[in-house]
Protein backbone atom coordinates (compact mmCIF):
# COMPACT_ATOMS: atom_id res chain seq x y z
CA UNK A 1 0.00 0.00 0.00
CA UNK A 2 1.38 3.40 -0.86
CA UNK A 3 1.10 6.64 1.09
CA UNK A 4 -1.49 8.01 -1.29
CA UNK A 5 -3.74 5.08 -0.63
CA UNK A 6 -3.17 5.24 3.12
CA UNK A 7 -4.37 8.84 3.03
CA UNK A 8 -7.57 7.79 1.25
CA UNK A 9 -8.07 5.08 3.84
CA UNK A 10 -7.54 7.62 6.62
CA UNK A 11 -10.12 9.99 5.14
CA UNK A 12 -12.66 7.22 4.72
CA UNK A 13 -11.98 6.09 8.26
CA UNK A 14 -12.73 9.61 9.50
CA UNK A 15 -15.99 9.56 7.54
CA UNK A 16 -17.02 6.21 8.93
CA UNK A 17 -15.90 6.67 12.50
CA UNK A 18 -17.28 10.14 13.17
CA UNK A 19 -20.88 11.02 13.86
CA UNK A 20 -23.38 12.38 11.34
CA UNK A 21 -22.78 15.90 12.68
CA UNK A 22 -19.40 15.83 10.89
CA UNK A 23 -20.77 14.14 7.78
CA UNK A 24 -20.77 17.12 5.42
CA UNK A 25 -17.18 18.11 6.17
CA UNK A 26 -15.80 14.57 6.12
CA UNK A 27 -17.67 13.52 2.99
CA UNK A 28 -16.57 16.64 1.12
CA UNK A 29 -12.91 15.96 1.96
CA UNK A 30 -13.20 12.28 0.99
CA UNK A 31 -14.97 13.09 -2.29
CA UNK A 32 -12.34 15.69 -3.16
CA UNK A 33 -9.52 13.22 -2.49
CA UNK A 34 -11.18 10.52 -4.61
CA UNK A 35 -11.74 13.02 -7.42
CA UNK A 36 -8.09 14.08 -7.26
CA UNK A 37 -6.95 10.45 -7.39
CA UNK A 38 -9.19 9.77 -10.41
CA UNK A 39 -7.76 12.81 -12.18
CA UNK A 40 -4.23 11.65 -11.44
CA UNK A 41 -4.94 8.15 -12.74
CA UNK A 42 -7.31 8.62 -15.70
CA UNK A 43 -7.45 4.86 -16.28
CA UNK A 44 -9.30 4.51 -12.99
CA UNK A 45 -12.76 5.88 -12.38
CA UNK A 46 -13.65 7.66 -9.14
CA UNK A 47 -16.28 4.98 -8.59
CA UNK A 48 -13.74 2.16 -8.72
CA UNK A 49 -11.25 3.94 -6.49
CA UNK A 50 -13.97 4.75 -4.00
CA UNK A 51 -15.18 1.13 -3.98
CA UNK A 52 -11.65 -0.15 -3.50
CA UNK A 53 -10.95 2.19 -0.58
CA UNK A 54 -14.21 1.27 1.12
CA UNK A 55 -13.69 -2.43 0.68
CA UNK A 56 -10.11 -2.32 1.90
CA UNK A 57 -11.09 -0.28 4.95
CA UNK A 58 -13.87 -2.68 5.91
CA UNK A 59 -11.59 -5.67 5.39
CA UNK A 60 -8.98 -4.08 7.65
CA UNK A 61 -11.52 -3.29 10.34
CA UNK A 62 -12.87 -6.83 10.30
CA UNK A 63 -9.35 -8.28 10.43
CA UNK A 64 -8.46 -6.00 13.32
CA UNK A 65 -11.63 -6.91 15.22
CA UNK A 66 -10.92 -10.59 14.63
CA UNK A 67 -7.37 -10.17 15.87
CA UNK A 68 -8.57 -8.41 19.02
CA UNK A 69 -11.14 -11.08 19.75
CA UNK A 70 -8.56 -13.89 19.61
CA UNK A 71 -7.62 -15.17 23.07
CA UNK A 72 -4.26 -13.79 24.17
CA UNK A 73 -1.53 -16.40 24.18
CA UNK A 74 0.46 -16.86 27.35
CA UNK A 75 4.16 -16.27 27.00
Amino acid at each position, binding site marked *: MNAEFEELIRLYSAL*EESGPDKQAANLAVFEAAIKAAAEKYPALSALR*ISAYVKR*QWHLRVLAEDRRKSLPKQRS
Partner: protein
Amino acid sequence: MAGLEATLAPTVPRFTPNPHQDVEDLVRLLLRQSGEFERRKKLISAAVTWINAFSQFKHLRRQIGLPDNDLQALGYGMLLANLKSRGKGLLQLIGRGILDPSELPLSVEDLEACVRELQQDDILLDSGLLRNEEKLEDVAAIFGGT
Protein backbone atom coordinates in the same frame (compact mmCIF):
# COMPACT_ATOMS: atom_id res chain seq x y z
CA MET B 1 -38.78 22.90 21.80
CA ALA B 2 -38.92 26.44 23.20
CA GLY B 3 -38.79 27.83 19.67
CA LEU B 4 -41.59 25.57 18.56
CA GLU B 5 -43.84 26.61 21.44
CA ALA B 6 -43.11 30.25 20.79
CA THR B 7 -44.11 30.00 17.15
CA LEU B 8 -47.30 28.23 18.12
CA ALA B 9 -48.50 31.01 20.36
CA PRO B 10 -50.22 33.41 17.99
CA THR B 11 -52.92 35.85 18.98
CA VAL B 12 -55.61 34.64 21.34
CA PRO B 13 -59.08 35.54 19.94
CA ARG B 14 -60.47 38.80 21.21
CA PHE B 15 -63.35 38.57 23.63
CA THR B 16 -66.73 39.59 22.30
CA PRO B 17 -69.97 40.31 24.12
CA ASN B 18 -70.96 36.70 23.43
CA PRO B 19 -69.16 34.45 25.99
CA HIS B 20 -70.31 31.26 24.22
CA GLN B 21 -68.70 32.38 21.00
CA ASP B 22 -65.53 33.38 22.87
CA VAL B 23 -65.19 29.95 24.44
CA GLU B 24 -65.92 28.21 21.16
CA ASP B 25 -63.29 30.29 19.32
CA LEU B 26 -60.76 29.62 22.05
CA VAL B 27 -61.38 25.87 22.00
CA ARG B 28 -61.10 25.83 18.21
CA LEU B 29 -57.84 27.75 18.35
CA LEU B 30 -56.39 25.45 21.01
CA LEU B 31 -57.38 22.35 19.06
CA ARG B 32 -55.80 23.74 15.90
CA GLN B 33 -52.62 24.68 17.76
CA SER B 34 -52.32 21.36 19.56
CA GLY B 35 -52.83 19.51 16.25
CA GLU B 36 -50.11 21.57 14.63
CA PHE B 37 -47.85 21.11 17.64
CA GLU B 38 -48.35 17.32 17.55
CA ARG B 39 -47.71 17.19 13.81
CA ARG B 40 -44.46 19.13 14.14
CA LYS B 41 -43.41 17.06 17.11
CA LYS B 42 -43.96 13.88 15.08
CA LEU B 43 -41.94 15.26 12.17
CA ILE B 44 -39.03 16.15 14.44
CA SER B 45 -39.25 12.74 16.05
CA ALA B 46 -39.21 11.07 12.62
CA ALA B 47 -36.13 13.05 11.64
CA VAL B 48 -34.32 12.14 14.85
CA THR B 49 -35.25 8.49 14.33
CA TRP B 50 -33.81 8.65 10.83
CA ILE B 51 -30.55 10.20 12.05
CA ASN B 52 -30.25 7.44 14.66
CA ALA B 53 -31.01 4.79 12.05
CA PHE B 54 -28.29 6.21 9.80
CA SER B 55 -25.76 6.07 12.65
CA GLN B 56 -26.81 2.53 13.53
CA PHE B 57 -26.56 1.47 9.90
CA LYS B 58 -22.94 2.67 9.76
CA HIS B 59 -22.17 1.08 13.10
CA LEU B 60 -23.63 -2.23 11.96
CA ARG B 61 -21.77 -2.05 8.67
CA ARG B 62 -18.55 -1.50 10.57
CA GLN B 63 -19.23 -4.59 12.68
CA ILE B 64 -20.37 -6.87 9.87
CA GLY B 65 -18.54 -5.51 6.86
CA LEU B 66 -19.73 -5.06 3.32
CA PRO B 67 -22.01 -7.68 1.73
CA ASP B 68 -20.19 -10.80 0.62
CA ASN B 69 -22.86 -12.86 -1.12
CA ASP B 70 -26.15 -12.45 -2.96
CA LEU B 71 -28.32 -12.73 0.11
CA GLN B 72 -26.28 -10.21 2.08
CA ALA B 73 -26.25 -7.87 -0.92
CA LEU B 74 -30.03 -8.13 -1.14
CA GLY B 75 -30.53 -7.29 2.54
CA TYR B 76 -27.93 -4.55 2.44
CA GLY B 77 -29.51 -3.07 -0.67
CA MET B 78 -32.97 -3.07 0.85
CA LEU B 79 -31.76 -1.35 3.99
CA LEU B 80 -29.77 1.15 1.97
CA ALA B 81 -32.67 1.95 -0.36
CA ASN B 82 -35.06 2.35 2.54
CA LEU B 83 -32.78 4.70 4.44
CA LYS B 84 -31.99 6.66 1.31
CA SER B 85 -35.60 7.20 0.27
CA ARG B 86 -36.65 8.24 3.77
CA GLY B 87 -33.69 10.59 3.99
CA LYS B 88 -34.68 12.14 0.69
CA GLY B 89 -38.21 12.47 2.03
CA LEU B 90 -36.93 14.42 5.02
CA LEU B 91 -34.95 16.72 2.75
CA GLN B 92 -38.08 17.30 0.66
CA LEU B 93 -40.06 18.21 3.78
CA ILE B 94 -37.34 20.69 4.71
CA GLY B 95 -37.26 22.06 1.16
CA ARG B 96 -41.03 22.61 1.22
CA GLY B 97 -40.85 24.36 4.57
CA ILE B 98 -42.85 21.68 6.37
CA LEU B 99 -39.97 20.63 8.60
CA ASP B 100 -37.93 23.35 10.25
CA PRO B 101 -34.24 22.36 10.14
CA SER B 102 -33.41 24.64 13.06
CA GLU B 103 -35.31 22.21 15.29
CA LEU B 104 -33.17 19.24 14.23
CA PRO B 105 -29.98 18.06 15.92
CA LEU B 106 -28.23 18.01 12.52
CA SER B 107 -27.60 20.74 9.97
CA VAL B 108 -29.20 20.49 6.53
CA GLU B 109 -25.71 20.19 5.02
CA ASP B 110 -24.93 17.17 7.20
CA LEU B 111 -28.32 15.62 6.46
CA GLU B 112 -27.75 16.11 2.72
CA ALA B 113 -24.29 14.55 3.04
CA CYS B 114 -25.74 11.52 4.85
CA VAL B 115 -28.21 10.98 2.01
CA ARG B 116 -25.48 11.59 -0.58
CA GLU B 117 -23.26 8.91 0.94
CA LEU B 118 -26.18 6.47 0.86
CA GLN B 119 -26.79 7.32 -2.80
CA GLN B 120 -23.12 6.73 -3.63
CA ASP B 121 -23.13 3.40 -1.81
CA ASP B 122 -26.30 2.40 -3.65
CA ILE B 123 -24.57 3.09 -6.97
CA LEU B 124 -21.53 1.07 -5.87
CA LEU B 125 -23.74 -1.81 -4.81
CA ASP B 126 -25.78 -1.73 -8.03
CA SER B 127 -22.63 -1.74 -10.13
CA GLY B 128 -21.31 -4.75 -8.20
CA LEU B 129 -18.23 -2.87 -7.04
CA LEU B 130 -18.77 -3.56 -3.35
CA ARG B 131 -18.67 -7.31 -3.82
CA ASN B 132 -15.47 -9.32 -3.54
CA GLU B 133 -16.07 -11.05 -6.88
CA GLU B 134 -15.21 -7.75 -8.57
CA LYS B 135 -11.47 -7.83 -8.10
CA LEU B 136 -10.69 -4.21 -8.93
CA GLU B 137 -7.26 -5.37 -10.05
CA ASP B 138 -6.62 -2.17 -11.99
CA VAL B 139 -6.98 -0.12 -8.80
CA ALA B 140 -5.00 -2.61 -6.73
CA ALA B 141 -2.17 -2.49 -9.30
CA ILE B 142 -1.72 1.22 -8.64
CA PHE B 143 -2.54 1.52 -4.98
CA GLY B 144 -1.38 -1.88 -3.81
CA GLY B 145 -3.53 -4.67 -2.49
CA THR B 146 -3.93 -6.89 0.52
